[in-house]
């Protein structure tokens, strides 16, 4: 039975439980003459919750764990002899999965029955051809152990699915009966259902923790795999990035790190002065109508998806810089360059710097301004010598947050900075960044279990640690700053 149907049935039981529980509460109350502790609906609600929630959670867990357990066992069935030279087990497992799906398709199309399948042997029938008929194309003939593994996988999946149906529906039914029997006028149904709801709320708040845990775990796990295949020292200290399809790659992070920092630096060079001046002007000088137009306009920049900036870099800024600056000066001929990406990313970061700085500048107490004006300072002197120094920690926090954005930004650099890993200084040259290489290594055709793919996880982990560090420092600084004036 498909998960959709199971869910529907469980929800049906849940609705049924609500009415049964409510009815029983009213009936027992009438019969015993006792007043209900809670409103009748709460009795129904308690029964409904007990029926649906554990069963659905069980189903989710099952769906999550079953593939892990079955694949582990099936993987053991595949002897090393069928793994092609230079290939990996994961590829064979992918074949196994596709054959199993193909067999299902054959079954549905009515070309074959269960008993046919049991009798079917890879060495006697042309499996490849028959699967081809239902749209499953295989690269080569199927070795016997692989076919057997596929049959076994199919069987385990089917029986697993069957067991799950029984277990989930059984649990829902059992809890429905159990909680229905417990319905009694003295039962504190409201408290029971509220405790239940509260635990759901707690569960929801744990999703955030689980996400972080998932991020860290997945990054760490594959990074460790990577370092088993590729020496960590080379990764961190090699200045060459040169992945090869057939092993022997140089995977040094330094050129990527350099590109990342160079682009981010240029972006901040654009965004920080502009963002700060905008914040200052809007907070201290601008007339109300100007502020009413300019502030939202600047903030719109923050709501535009980065792909739009990427396209802007690709079709407008890149060619412009190449044709009007780089080429005439003989500095480069590439339209994707560090400067293109830096400039466009700088525009993207303006609102981050300006709106945070605006908040921070406004948080500087008016008495500071009065003190300075009272001494005969001009507005700009007051801003430069009193307000900015007072707001400095907060502004630094804002800049760090912007820096972390810049380092983690992907689409603009993918479309604007180029793909060549280089350690250079010329801003009109194409260079590449950590995020660009994560994308290219994970969307390429290389096999998953190779260092060339796994390096993306090590890059991801580096990126995560970098940005996390910047964020934490920035948040601490900003929080400290806010406390200072509260």
């Amino acid at each position, binding site marked *: 039975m498909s998960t959709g149907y199971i869910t529907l049935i469980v929800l049906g039981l849940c609705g049924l439980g609500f009415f049964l529980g409510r009815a029983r509460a009213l009936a027992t109350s009438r019969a015993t003459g006792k007043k209900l502790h809670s409103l009748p609906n709460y009795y129904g609600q308690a029964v409904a919750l007990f029926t649906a929630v554990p069963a659905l959670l069980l189903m989710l867990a099952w769906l999550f764990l079953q593939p892990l357990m079955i694949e582990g066992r099936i993987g053991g069935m595949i002897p090393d002899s069928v793994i092609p030279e230079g290939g990996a087990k994961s590829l064979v497992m992918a074949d196994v999965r596709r054959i199993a799906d193909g067999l299902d398709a054959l079954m549905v199309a009515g070309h074959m029955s269960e008993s046919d399948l049991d009798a079917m042997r890879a060495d006697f029938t042309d499996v490849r051809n028959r699967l081809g008929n239902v749209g499953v194309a295989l690269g080569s003939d199927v070795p016997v152990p692989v076919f057997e593994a596929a049959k076994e996988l199919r069987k385990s999946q089917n029986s697993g699915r069957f067991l799950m149906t029984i277990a989930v529906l059984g649990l829902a039914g059992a809890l429905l009966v159990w909680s229905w029997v417990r319905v009694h006028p003295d039962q504190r149904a409201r408290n029971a259902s509220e405790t239940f709801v509260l635990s759901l709320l707690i569960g929801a708040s744990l999703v955030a923790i689980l996400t972080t845990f998932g991020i860290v775990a997945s990054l760490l796990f594959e990074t460790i795999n990577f370092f088993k295949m590729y020496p960590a020292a080379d990764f961190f200290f090699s200045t060459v990035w040169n992945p090869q399809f057939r092993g022997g790659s140089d995977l040094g992070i330094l050129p990527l790190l350099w590109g990342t920092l160079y682009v981010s630096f240029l972006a901040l060079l654009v965004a920080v002065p502009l963002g700060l001046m905008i914040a200052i002007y809007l907070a201290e000088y601008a007339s109300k109508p100007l502020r009413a137009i300019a502030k939202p306009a600047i903030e719109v920049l923050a709501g535009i998806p980065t792909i739009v900036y990427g396209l802007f870099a690709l079709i407008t800024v890149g060619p412009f810089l190449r044709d009007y600056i780089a080429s005439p000066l003989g500095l480069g001929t590439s339209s994707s360059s560090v400067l293109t990406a830096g400039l466009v990313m700088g525009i993207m970061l303006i609102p981050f710097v300006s709106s945070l700085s605006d908040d921070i500048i406004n948080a500087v107490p008016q008495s500071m301004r009065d003190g300075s004006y009272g001494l*005969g300072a001009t507005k700009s002197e007051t801003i430069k010598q009193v307000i900015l120094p007072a707001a400095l920690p907060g502004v630094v926090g804002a800049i760090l947050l912007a820096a972390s954005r810049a380092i983690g930004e992907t689409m603009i650099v993918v479309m604007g900075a180029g793909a060549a890993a280089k350690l250079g200084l010329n801003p009109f040259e194409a260079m590449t960044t950590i995020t660009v290489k994560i994308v290219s290594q994970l969307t390429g055709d290389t096999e998953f279990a190779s260092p060339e793919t796994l390096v993306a996880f090590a890059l991801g982990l580096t990126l995560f640690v970098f940005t996390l560090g910047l964020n934490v420092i920035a948040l601490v600084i900003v929080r400290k700053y806010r406390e200072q004036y509260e």
Partner: protein
Amino acid sequence: MFDAPKFAETKVTNNDIKIAARKVQVYYGDTHAIKDVDVDILDKTVTAFIGPSGCGKSTFLRCINRMNDTIDICRVMGDILIDGEDIYDKKVDPVQLRAKVGMVFQKPNPFPKSIYDNVAYGPRIHGLARTKADLDEIVEKSLRRAALWNEAKDRLDQPGTGLSGGQQQRLCIARAVATSPEVLLMDEPCSALDPIATAQVEELIDELRQEFSVVIVTHSMQQAARVSQKTAFFHLGHLVEFGDTGQIFTNPKDERTESYITGRIG
């Protein structure tokens, strides 16, 4: 010291008129905050503005160095002359005016800088010192004049915000004095201070009178009596009575003044 209001010396015979205000009106949006105020403030004299809260005394004080300019909705009409020059004249630059008319605020507001930099801020922006030695001298002189030198001389490089409230207020006075103004406006300078600090500041005010014309807004009548030679009583935006402090407190001419002094309105 606090037992009976003592009157400050009132020998102000030959002092010149430093500030003359004529028919001053102030509007906050539609609110008429100051109505027809005429007053003459003498040089080397402490003038106190008293009155119930919201009577306009602080507003009027802020007109004298055009601090009200920083508030968009505030409009000032009438004439305020300092040394015979209309400070609301178009040719007058408020920046230059404020160098001449210093101000000390209700709450101590030292900048988040070192004590030295706090005091040196004014001289620096107005270019009063040519050399570092000049600046050092100005800072020392100002801190001495604000009676803070002995406490602060060993910690000049520490932040001004680290001082106690009374010290902070004296630092603000030193900061104001450092630009060598001719008039010093003080907006309830002691309202955030404890009695001991208040006494120190009051003593200081009396000494400042040797060189400056001091205008102080206060809602403590004792304070007005202790430090000022002249007192102006404001009520609902009007200047009700202006005269020698002794006369205002002992023999007020207007019955509103009397009611306020005796505590019936306030």
